């Protein structure tokens, strides 16, 4: 699945500065989670709930961090096909690493600050969930755990707080904004004809 996310981090500094919560944890289990959408929304997708044991808290962003937390991943589509968000592969039981998290404002679950927000430790070496072709990946991938941990500690040292890059958090749209935001003058011809006839979406897998 290819998404435009709230954040596309290009430095470890911005990832650390912007993610509200950073923990080191171990995956205990994973099971199907909540369902979202409906036929009229393109099908019902189902999330995957990962139970993460929190081994240590590096940044808590004002939250109370429990000893285990439920982390939401994606998922399955309406046809039951598994998919992942960008390069963030499904967590496996026993995975250990650093998790850059945010709290879902409406749910009890946690989510990744972005699909780049997981750094697994495999055989003492870091494995990034960032795009291998992107700028963040080479800054993380293949480092020793001790080296990466030292960078996190340095960035999170209160003495260095002024050096952290903190990207602005997205602002939830109000009901009126969701209906329509004012046009800002950018011009583009709008094709003729209605495209919103309210008909049912094509069932899938398609029979055509």
């Amino acid at each position: 699945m290819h998404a435009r996310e709230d954040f596309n981090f290009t430095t470890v500094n911005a990832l650390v500065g912007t993610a509200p919560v950073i923990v080191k944890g171990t995956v205990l289990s994973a099971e199907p989670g909540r369902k979202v959408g409906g036929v009229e929304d393109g099908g019902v997708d189902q999330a995957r709930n990962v139970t993460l044991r929190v081994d240590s808290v590096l940044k808590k962003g004002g939250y109370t961090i429990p000893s285990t937390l439920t982390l939401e991943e994606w998922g399955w589509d309406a046809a039951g096909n598994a998919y992942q968000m960008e390069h963030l592969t499904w967590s496996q039981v026993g995975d250990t690493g650093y998790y850059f998290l945010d709290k879902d404002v409406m749910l009890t679950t946690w989510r990744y600050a972005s699909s780049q927000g997981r750094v697994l430790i495999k055989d003492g070496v870091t494995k990034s969930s960032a795009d291998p072709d992107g700028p963040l990946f080479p800054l993380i991938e293949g480092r020793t755990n001790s080296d990466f941990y030292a960078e996190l500690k340095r960035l999170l040292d209160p003495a260095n707080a002024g050096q952290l890059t903190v990207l602005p958090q997205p602002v939830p749209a109000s009901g009126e904004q969701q209906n329509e935001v004012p046009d800002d003058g950018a011009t583009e011809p709008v094709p003729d004809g209605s495209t919103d006839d309210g008909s049912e979406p094509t069932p899938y897998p398609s029979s055509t």
Partner: protein
Amino acid sequence: MSAAFALCLPFTANAGHDDNGTDPDNRSQAVKGFNLTANGTKAMNHGKSQLERSVITTSWGGGDIEVYDKDYGDNGWHGYADCTDWNALWTSCDIIRVRFNQYSYKTSSQWKSLGCHEFGHTADLGHRARSNDTDNNSCMREEIWPLYYDQHDLNAIKAGT
């Protein structure tokens, strides 16, 4: 065998930004929106018109690119594109689903940029970065909101579809 193996695993593409989207099954794509808000319609219309600048021709109708929008909540994304009907080998897609998330506030230009971006994924484009879009004019960037495909994107669609 490869198809069976693919069905067992979460799917994703692993290639460069030029062919890291979803490969459509042809260069004639029908676009259909389902109960869209005004912002979703704006994004869809702009994405379709941008796709028209490429080798892909578009029309209105179901069966190729299907567009939805909703308040999908605080899930960390503005929009995404995925395939709901792969061919037998999972190499190209008959029906590509685009979803726009109404949760986060976006300006009118940002909605259009989002439409351009997600429709770019339907034409097999992946993300661009500052390092390969130094003039900051591709809507396939993630951290800024350009309105259009640049020539690199258009060339990539031609090469990749």
